């Protein structure tokens, strides 16, 4: 792969391209499953290419990943699968219980909390995968073909759920080659990959058109700093996003009952 782009906190980006274009490879580079032969990947002001093996688990906890094949642990029930990142993070039990309950409510899966992954449908498994990805309130969520195995109706609900998560402040990468999904949010930034390279980035076009209309910033160094920030953390947004999310859900439920 030979690609270069930057992402602002809270952005929603579609990563698209044909099979073999490098969408999943991009995810694996971000989670350091793969190490690039050259270049750098800056996340939260840190080059993840050079982080030590000891730091790697901590880095992975900052990114929530939604896999096409869900990757739920078959030996654990739904509740335990959602709790898994929190257990790994050694979160106190009381917090785990509260957080998992909230997440299951969010994805509307509380009634199936004690079932095992083999006992639920693909759409439900994907919802659980999303809930698990959100468990540690990550700064970035990478959804790799989350609708790959789902029907159009379920796909729509999953994509809406992911969009809602993004609207609450989480940076969202959504890798897909499904044109229907891309049409659901036409104004969203799209990075199109082909043979491991960026073929098109709609962000560049917008930037160029903005550059034409806007005046150049006076403070040159401030502009450079902003440019160098690849995927950075908006701490206030990230820490608070789950709370907002849950409040939002609770308010919605309350209004429905009244």
């Amino acid at each position, binding site marked *: 792969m030979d690609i270069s782009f930057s992402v602002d906190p809270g952005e929603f980006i579609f990563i698209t391209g044909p099979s073999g274009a490098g969408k999943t490879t991009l995810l694996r580079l971000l989670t350091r499953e793969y190490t690039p032969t050259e270049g750098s990947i800056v996340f939260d002001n840190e080059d993840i290419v050079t982080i030590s093996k000891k730091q790697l*688990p901590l880095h992975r*906890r900052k990114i929530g990943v939604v896999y096409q094949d869900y*990757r739920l642990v078959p030996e654990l029930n739904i509740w335990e699968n959602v709790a898994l990142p929190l257990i790994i993070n050694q979160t106190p039990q009381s917090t785990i219980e509260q957080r998992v309950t909230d997440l299951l409510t969010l994805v509307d899966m509380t009634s199936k909390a004690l079932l095992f992954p083999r006992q639920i449908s693909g759409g439900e498994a994907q919802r659980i995968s999303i809930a698990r990805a959100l468990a540690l309130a990550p700064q970035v969520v990478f959804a790799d073909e989350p609708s790959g195995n789902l029907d159009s109706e379920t796909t729509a609900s999953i994509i809406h759920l992911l969009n809602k998560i993004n609207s609450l402040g989480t940076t969202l990468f959504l890798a897909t080659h499904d044109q229907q999904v891309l049409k659901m949010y036409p104004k969203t930034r799209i990075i199109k990959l082909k043979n491991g390279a960026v073929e098109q980035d709609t962000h560049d076009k917008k930037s160029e058109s903005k550059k034409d209309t806007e005046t150049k910033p006076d403070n040159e160094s401030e502009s450079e700093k902003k440019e160098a920030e690849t995927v950075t953390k908006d701490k206030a947004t990230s820490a608070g996003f789950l709370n907002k999310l849950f409040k939002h859900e609770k308010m919605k439920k309350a209004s429905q009952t009244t």
Partner: protein
Amino acid sequence: MNSLTTALTTIRRSPYQALIAVLMTSLTFFISFLLSFVVIGAEIVLKHVESQPQIIAFFELGTEQEFIDNMKDKYNKNPQISSVQIVTQEQALDIYRKENSDDPLLIELVTADILPASIEVKTHNLEDLELIRTELDAEDSIEEVIYQQDVIVTLKKWTSGIRTGGIVVASVLAIVSFLSIMIVIALKATNQKNTISIFRLLGATQGFVKLPFIFEGVLYGFMGCLIGWILAFLTIVFSLPQIQAYIGNLFPLSIPLELLAIQLGLGILTSAILGATAGFVAVSRLMRT
């Protein structure tokens, strides 16, 4: 869902694999405990034999007490000799009475006059026994010399042989147990390769992934050690009366409770190290691939 609970769940879900590991470890500890009993028993017998007089020289009947005392003084001054003891005719009669206490007719027939006095000698080194025996044999008033060097040397060889053999057998069995636990855990870890990779992707540290497998190894070792110890204990309890009947009153035998407690403590420690290492090696090998 802590590591110990995870390990117990894994054991429960594949009972036959767990059974193999526990049985192999039990056999190892059972044989090791029994061998240690045999080695310690042989050491006790050797010490007992060594504590006995190594040369007993019987005086001719009617030997003067003064001659006997002179001979005692003479050998007391000999630097090669560690102890000299005289058994008078009366003391010999007492010993005879004790040994034949169940036969009053024999006790009645024998008097001190017909029992010879004797001199009992022990040397610092077993090699000097031959020289002392020759000296005593040359004395005019000595009728017979009993000499135990061969018994002690043979016993020493046996003890040393049992100890070496025991260490070899226990080591081989320990290696087999280690491999059994390792293979069983490696099989289970391979089965859970997908789960392990999910754990790693979710940010689990190596310790988080490895700990349940290490606990599993420790549990196999612990269970094996406990079963082995119980079997060894029962073997001792049931075989002790038979051994006692076989050796007679030579040594009074009793259940060595302190030794059993020490064995159990050391066994648990060893089994924990054995199991933990096997579990660690098994899962580390898998995580490297």
